[in-house]
């Protein structure tokens, strides 16, 4: 999965980016790198600007200042779909399935190419890919079978189910399946553990580790650093749109500035 010509092993460079909304400086001269193959934790209290960073990377917002480079290509100001097709996929903090489409169609949507006349994948290839992805992230586990089976002729046992039938944890998995369908090199996960039980958090962590082994670099956002510490390789702590600290989980846990930001409000 390694790409040629990546400087310093950085797959994504977030370089001096600022963004304000009205009077609010949401992101203030923020710089950090994401290294090829790592899981980077992006933590910070709620409202620190983590989701804004994702929106800046994925092109939903455009930075007022600064540059964003992905695999040595500058992607600042690109439209969201172009960023996705360059190899960056994201999940949303609150799952956003396409409510009127079945689960398998939800995943299939992410396989649609933009060249209107090109063929892309054949129908069989598409449905196979969808089934594999559904099985991999076990979206359809709740329907009583393990994973998602191709029953026959491309029929899969969750092909008649709509997202409204899924419990919360499965919706999170569906988000990941949709993101994976775009074949990303970099995956942005916005609070993937929110609302999950302890055991579901473990399942999710295992899934993210597997994807890391397949070479998918990840940025995981969470407001709660404790949940993330065992998963991530490195942590960037954000507070009020600025970088508060950066380092390995062990370093961050000992960092007094981080302790201050997280605990002072309640300990004084």
């Amino acid at each position: 999965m390694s790409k040629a010509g990546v400087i310093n092993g950085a797959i994504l460079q977030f370089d001096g980016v600022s963004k304000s909304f009205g009077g609010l400086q949401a992101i203030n001269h923020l710089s950090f790198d994401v290294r090829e193959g790592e899981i980077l934790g992006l933590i910070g209290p709620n409202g620190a600007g983590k989701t804004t960073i994702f929106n800046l990377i994925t092109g939903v917002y455009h930075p007022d200042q600064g540059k964003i480079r992905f695999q040595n290509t500058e992607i600042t100001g690109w439209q969201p779909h172009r960023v996705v097709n360059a190899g960056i996929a994201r999940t949303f903090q609150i799952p956003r399935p396409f409510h009127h489409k079945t689960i398998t169609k939800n995943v299939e949507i992410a396989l649609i190419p933009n060249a209107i006349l090109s063929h892309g994948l054949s129908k069989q290839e598409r449905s196979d890919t969808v089934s594999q992805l559904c099985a991999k992230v076990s979206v359809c586990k709740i329907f009583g079978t393990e994973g998602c089976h191709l029953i026959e002729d491309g029929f899969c046992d969750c092909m008649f189910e709509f997202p409204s039938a899924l419990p919360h944890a499965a919706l999170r998995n569906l988000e990941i399946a949709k993101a994976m369908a775009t074949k990303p090199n970099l995956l942005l996960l916005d609070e993937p553990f929110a609302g999950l039980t302890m055991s579901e958090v473990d399942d999710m962590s295992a899934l993210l580790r597997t994807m890391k082994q397949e070479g998918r670099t990840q940025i995981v956002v969470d407001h709660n650093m404790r949940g993330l510490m065992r998963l991530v390789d490195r942590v960037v702590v954000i507070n009020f749109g600025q970088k508060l600290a950066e380092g390995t989980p062990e370093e961050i846990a000992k960092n007094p500035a981080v302790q201050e930001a997280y605990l002072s409000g309640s300990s004084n």
Partner: protein
Amino acid sequence: MILKRARTLTWVSAAIILISLGFLILVPQLFVGNSFLISTFVFANIYSILAMSWDLLSGYTGQISFGHSFFFGIGAYTSALLSMHLGWSPLYTIPLGGVMASLGGLLVATPALRLRGPYLSLITLVSALGIDQLIRVLKLGSTGAEGAIQCEIDLATGVNHCVPPISANEVEVYYFALGLMVCIAIFLIFLVRSRIGLAFEAIRDDEEAAEAAGIDAKKYKILAFMISGFLAGLAGAVMVHKMQQASPGLVLDLNISIEAIVASVLGGMGTILGPVGGAYFYILIRELLRPFGQWRLFAVFVIALLILLFIPRGVLAEIRLRLMHWIKSEKPKEPQQGARA
């Protein structure tokens, strides 16, 4: 054996569609010489095309258009003017009308891309009102009065000069309209089931999430506008050759946009075939129940409102969903382990 119900259902719906189609093919034979009835069926086919076109843009892609008369009128005027002044056969000018309307779609889509919801709907409405005014101001028609194109008698030769009909034979006109409608329906059914249709629906459900799934929403929206414009333009062009005249009141009236919406609501938005049923229902009531006067339209609109209130998905979509639940209730007995590999 597994999903037997799904297959049964496919066969049953195919049979229903074929029987309806068979009936439509036999209409001229069943009602020989009843030119009023055959005319009515021609209108029903034209409105079906219009309603399907609205459904593609609004039902599938979620871009609610209040101005489909814009496309309808462009198609009508283009085809009428070309065939009358250049003497081209309607068989060439009708597609050209569609092409012009499609370009009109591109024109509307350009500002519409930045707009959502009511803003977008207003732009479509304004374009329809605007072209109506423009044609009146430019006196685009042959007679000049209010931009109308009417029959003119050439004083030198005494020949009556009109918008040419598609054919002098009403039955041929009927088959032309029916054939066109069926071809378009087939085309659209394939289109909405393709990945393009899937992209349309994704944009309708959640545009931001669609972009996050890598879909170029702008491109697909332009495509939807252009295809929808093309089809509505074809409908308008066929209409103008059927009526052999054109005026803003005939082909650009807001009523036409409203009727397209009503037909789609009656049959069910986002189903393609539903709007065809809705258009037939609407036109047959409008034409055949004339003795009831205005009551018939009042009743149709009330029915449409009741459908919105109680079956907001639309009749066909509701049936489809119920059937889907029915299929689902038949669980596969023994999931074949590892069949995926």
